[in-house]
């Protein structure tokens, strides 16, 4: 129940499939298996898929958790515009990438896993999801200062008239006055 975001799961799957394809390709190339050219392709395709899928997209509802250090990848992937934003493109891209992996035993697992993630991306695209980059938000402006500071008092505090305030050297005690309004510190 509720709105499931399939794209997030497809993204995890595609990243894992990229790694599986990469590992299978490395084993195939290192062991010089028959058909090692497919394994070399697997390495290249695996790296490409990992780079494409590393930046996580933004969730439509709720907080998005970034992967470590994904900002530069986000910028790269974002620059392709609608090619990376649309999940139909990703679904068909993964489906196309996975096919050559099926011709060799070492990369067949990567092929199947990438195929599954391509299907889930197709499902996400049908649900209308889109990839949106997670960009750091602008610094929150500081809390605006309270209104009272903007309007300083127009009038000085009440004081007795000038002649009483003038300090009289001969009568220092008479020069002191009691402030008519009590002045207390604000809490």
């Amino acid at each position: 129940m509720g709105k499931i975001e399939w794209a997030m799961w497809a993204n995890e799957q595609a990243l894992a499939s990229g790694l599986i394809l990469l590992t299978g390709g490395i084993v195939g190339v290192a062991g010089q298996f028959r058909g090692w050219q497919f394994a070399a392709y697997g390495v290249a395709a695996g790296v490409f898929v990992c780079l494409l899928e590393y930046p996580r997209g933004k969730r439509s509802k709720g907080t998005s958790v970034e992967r470590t250090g994904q900002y530069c990848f986000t910028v790269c992937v974002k620059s392709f515009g609608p090619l990376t934003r649309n999940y139909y493109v990703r679904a068909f891209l993964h489906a196309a990438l996975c096919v050559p992996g099926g011709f060799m035993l070492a990369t067949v697992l990567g092929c199947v896993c990438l195929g599954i993630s391509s299907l889930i991306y197709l499902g996400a695209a049908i649900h209308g999801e889109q990839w949106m980059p997670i960009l750091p938000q602008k610094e929150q402006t500081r809390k605006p200062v309270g209104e009272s500071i903007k309007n300083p008092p127009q009038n000085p505090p009440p004081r007795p008239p000038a002649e009483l305030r003038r300090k009289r050297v001969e009568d220092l005690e008479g020069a002191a006055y009691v402030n008519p309004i009590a002045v207390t510190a604000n809490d």
Partner: protein
Amino acid sequence: MVVSVRSWVANEGGKHLVLVLWLGANTWLFLRTFLLYSTGQQYYYLYKMLGLGLCISRASAAVLNLNCSVVLLPMCRSLLTYVRGTHTVSSRKTRRLLDKSKTFHVACGVAICIFSVVHVSAHLVNVVNFSVSYSDDFPALNVARYRGEVRHTLPGVTGVLLVLILFLMFTASSYCIRVSNYEIFWYTHNLFIVFYIILMVHMVGGALKYQTNIEAHPPGCLRANQSSPEQQGEELEQSEDEERRCREEAHFQPHCPQTWLWVSGPLCLYCAERFYRYIRSSDPVTIVTVIRHPCNVIELRMLKRDFKARPGQYIVLNCPGVSSFENHPFTLTTCPTENKETFGIHLRVVGDWTERFTELLLPEQGIASEILPMVQQRRYPKLYVDGPFGSPSEEVFNYEVSLCVAGGIGVTPFACVLHALLNGWVGFRLRRLYFVWVCRELKSFYWFAELLCALHHKLWQENRPDYLNLRLYVSQTDKLQSMSEEKYRPLSSRLLVGRPRWKLLFDEIGKTNKHNRVGVFCCGPKSISRTLHRLCNSARYSGTTFEFNKESFS
């Protein structure tokens, strides 16, 4: 911050000991199997054909057997709750280890994934070697039917299926997915039963064979018979040597599958546990009252036959009217007692399931109906409760001094503790409780304001005012806030604005409880629990040991 050895050992020692034991068991199993296959006489010919790939694949398979059997045990929650409850069986140290059962499950899961990768890679090399090093001397040893063939075998096909299921389970288990779309995680993780069934038939078919007649045919003796003509002279002398003579051909036999020995015990235990939980939760509960609290919190009081729970435990709710298969955990805020059989939870409405559930419980009241209350028969949705399950907060009563730190809705386990104290605070080992509750808004404190005041008054009446040391913090500092009601005076006078200063709090508790063991219980956001964990491990306090226990909701 300097880490104190004694505090570190008290807090981290048990976990790290279990980790070391588990790593040791894995390493020992790996090395033993590796050496068996590389030096064992019965695998001599197989090793010559396959090389290192054989040893690595079998060693990783042994480690996989161990981890696949052990991974199920931390998930037997009812069993763990029972072990936690029986104080005679386990000491507090063992019970604190049970808090980390989910972490152990994750560690075993990660080990399964890593060793699966190793195992599959090694078997890929084996497949190539089976086809390239096709042995004409020992045709029974081969898997390929002719040189250069890559053949489909049952282990191969089942292996691919296993990796696919593991791939689905693993990709849906990341923290991100669990937090945002828990259903995907739950449904894929329940594929484990298919995984185990396929795992048990994985080895049927026996691709790897061992030699059965080592005494009659010592490995390597065939070559002695087929040596070059120049050595014929020496051969004739050595042919009388009993040990080097082959009396018969080498016979090979495949292994019987061993995985079921490892896996069947824990699998049966886990299936029994799930069955028991299903039976126990099949009795629907009666909803007695629904109360709406400020800040989007609903309190639910229920009644169920034969339901017993201890303070700090949690239950899992299933409401078919909202979603048939989703189960959500909630901590109990009131436990059933001898006098009162109802139990209650507080749930915060955030997310689809809770929103829909609240709509079913409290249909939206229009303004008109508030003026003229309509008497209508309340039809509550059907609700099933599974549990109760144990949690770290049950230990609050087992320390002499406890510090409970709650963040927002994380106060629920401690609310149950406070209810239990209200019913009778004598008789527990607990002699002082420091209760710190941090909320964003002031209105959140109204969830349990009456409970706190009632407990405070009771303790004052019974002449133990120092039993409960209460501090409330409101972290949002922009508005001037206070609780104005007269009956909540004890709370408003203990209310502080701003975030708490944990170091000062720990200093104060340390000074007043020297050479004591203080239990710290935290249920709240990660930032608070991290800070508290660090403070518990540091070395500042005069002989006081702080034992950190964390309750997590995800």
